[in-house]
């Protein structure tokens, strides 16, 4: 339907996806290149009778959404590199206390203030290991606005299903680029509602006792069940403990609920992989250029394909192994010094060499860059 076709920035597509997913509460702090997410939601949320607040800093934004999640809301914040660094402690809190929330990081060049208005994909490993301690995390990415919208909705679904923070790892190019977005009809993308306990008042509710399927039904603050939530290791009541067996059990639970369900949260796209002897692996804005290169080389008869990962973490190692099984040349296209390349190398093992095709000067990697490096890798010269 015509009314559902829009022409928007990627950041707006993210905000629209969040609204579609049922976002109730947003807290944020202005930062380039993610600010349009906040600006869009500052208009949309109050108009929908929902909550938007600009907090005093990045840290408090992350904390506020966790508080709001506990009263039963779908929550989100958005930021970029420096802000993402500041949010890490509270992000770990959401991991430990198992609070559903979504954090968009529209990546720019780092470290430090870095290259604020230019593109980068340098936060891939920060998304994985930015907060301290052993943990698993979910991070999704997208190369076009339809996928930005879709992945934003899926981020909320995963957050609710697994009671985990989910990171949307976008980048400046996708965030600021304008292109067509067709907003799906209601119900077109299934939404996951919060799983709440059915236990009645007076019956003991254990907020941190997983069901047989590993899921933990929640109870909203303000509802009949009163319990403790903490960032300390805790028992089934949510009360602090340092008993070795409980510490280990909780740590394992938090990691296993993600790592044992990798296939359920793996989103990807494959292009011409069936017979590909050269396999490119990419994500985000880089995947647009990689696809362009692949199409050009295909037209010239080269057996080349692309695996575009929408799920970055947990890393879909099985998928990557399958897609590269018959490859003679594997190259990861990304705008950093090889952060996802490391994960691909781990997945592929010693059997095959994995090359990096990158650009780290703040400029978008283009199809010519990729073609030139590919020719070198293939021993054909530029």
């Amino acid at each position, binding site marked *: 339907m015509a009314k559902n076709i829009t022409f928007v920035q990627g950041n707006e597509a993210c905000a629209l996806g969040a609204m579609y997913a049922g976002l109730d509460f947003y807290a944020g702090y202005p930062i380039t290149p993610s600010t349009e997410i906040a600006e869009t939601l500052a208009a949309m949320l*109050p108009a929908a009778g929902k909550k938007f607040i600009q907090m005093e800093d990045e840290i408090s934004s992350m904390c506020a959404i966790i508080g709001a999640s506990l009263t039963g809301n779908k929550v989100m914040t958005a930021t970029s590199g420096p802000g993402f660094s500041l949010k890490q402690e509270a992000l770990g809190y959401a991991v430990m206390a198992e609070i559903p929330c979504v954090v968009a990081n529209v990546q720019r060049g780092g470290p430090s203030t870095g290259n604020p208005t230019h593109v980068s994909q340098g936060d891939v490993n920060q998304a994985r290991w930015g907060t301290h301690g052993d943990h698993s995390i979910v991070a999704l990415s997208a190369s076009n606005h339809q996928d930005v919208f879709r992945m934003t909705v899926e981020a909320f679904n995963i957050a609710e299903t697994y009671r985990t923070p989910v990171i949307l790892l976008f980048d400046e190019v996708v965030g600021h680029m304008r292109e067509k977005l067709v907003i799906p009809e209601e119900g077109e993308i299934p939404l996951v509602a919060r799983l709440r306990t059915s236990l009645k008042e007076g019956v003991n509710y254990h907020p941190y006792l997983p069901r047989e399927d590993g899921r933990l039904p929640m109870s909203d*603050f303000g509802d009949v069940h*009163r319990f403790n939530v903490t960032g300390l290791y805790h028992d089934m009541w949510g009360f602090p403990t340092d008993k070795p067996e409980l510490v280990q059990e909780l740590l394992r639970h938090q990691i296993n609920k993600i790592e044992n369900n990798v296939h359920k949260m793996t989103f990807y796209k494959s292009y011409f992989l069936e017979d590909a002897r050269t396999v490119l692996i990419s994500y985000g804005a880089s995947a647009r250029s990689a696809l362009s290169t692949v199409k050009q080389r295909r037209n010239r008869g080269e057996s080349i394909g692309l695996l575009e990962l929408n799920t970055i973490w947990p890393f879909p190692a099985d998928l990557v192994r399958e897609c590269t099984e018959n490859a003679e040349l594997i190259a990861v296209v990304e705008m950093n010094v090889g952060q996802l390349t490391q994960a691909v190398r781990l997945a592929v093992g010693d059997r095959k060499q994995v090359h990096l095709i990158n650009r780290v000067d703040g400029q978008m990697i283009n199809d010519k860059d990729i073609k030139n490096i590919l020719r070198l890798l293939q021993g054909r010269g530029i």
Partner: protein
Amino acid sequence: MDVKHYLRERFFPHMWCPGCGHGIVLNSLVRAVDSLKIKKQDMVMVSGIGCSSRISGYVDFHSLHTLHGRALAFATGVKLSKPSLNVIVPMGDGDAMAIGGNHFIHAARRNINITALVMNNKTYGMTGGQYSPLSGIGAKATTAPYNNIDREFDTVELATGAGATFVARTTVYHVKQLQSFIKQAISHNGFSVLEVLTQCPTYYGRKNKKGSAVNMIQAYKDMTVPVGSEKKKENPELIERGIFVDSDLPEYCEAYAEMVERATGR
């Protein structure tokens, strides 16, 4: 009243040292809540990190034990998302005034209806007695072996300057007043700050030769006077107790609800 009705006895004994003043605050708090007849399920206690922050786990309310200094930020999310809840934030002096200073002044500026209890024992107790922003010049601490040279904040003046609409101070010696002030702070529609002078005999007391817990509580009687007292003019060293600010200004969640009406054209 039955104090135990409000406590999670499953989690006792508590982790506070013998002689600590925090239990007196906990006692006064549950009595205040009881006298207000607020249902337990309408109460949320949000705290950060430190000895005082552990208070949240011991009460049978919804309780959120968060990160060092960030309790008011979490509490803002709880309150704004569900304004019908009563939100109380117990904080230590380091938690509230050092690492959490930014959140403290901004919660006050917004005038969001949250009650901040600043339990001031002039030290970081949980980490073993380092100086805090409320220790004051001359105090001894494990990180101030040659006496502290850092000036202290005045919690009341800071809260007032930042825009809190209810600001009061008392001590754990003055338990009746403490209970009454907590009650008034919770009842106040806006951001309320209650500074409670409480004792840490284990670290601050020992380092500064303040004697036993009883000596320290007695000292709170001797070193404080009611606000506006003539004695304060004669001896500026005395600390004033009482209600310093009690004003009626637009509350944040109510202002938000009005904005929603504008946004939705209702």
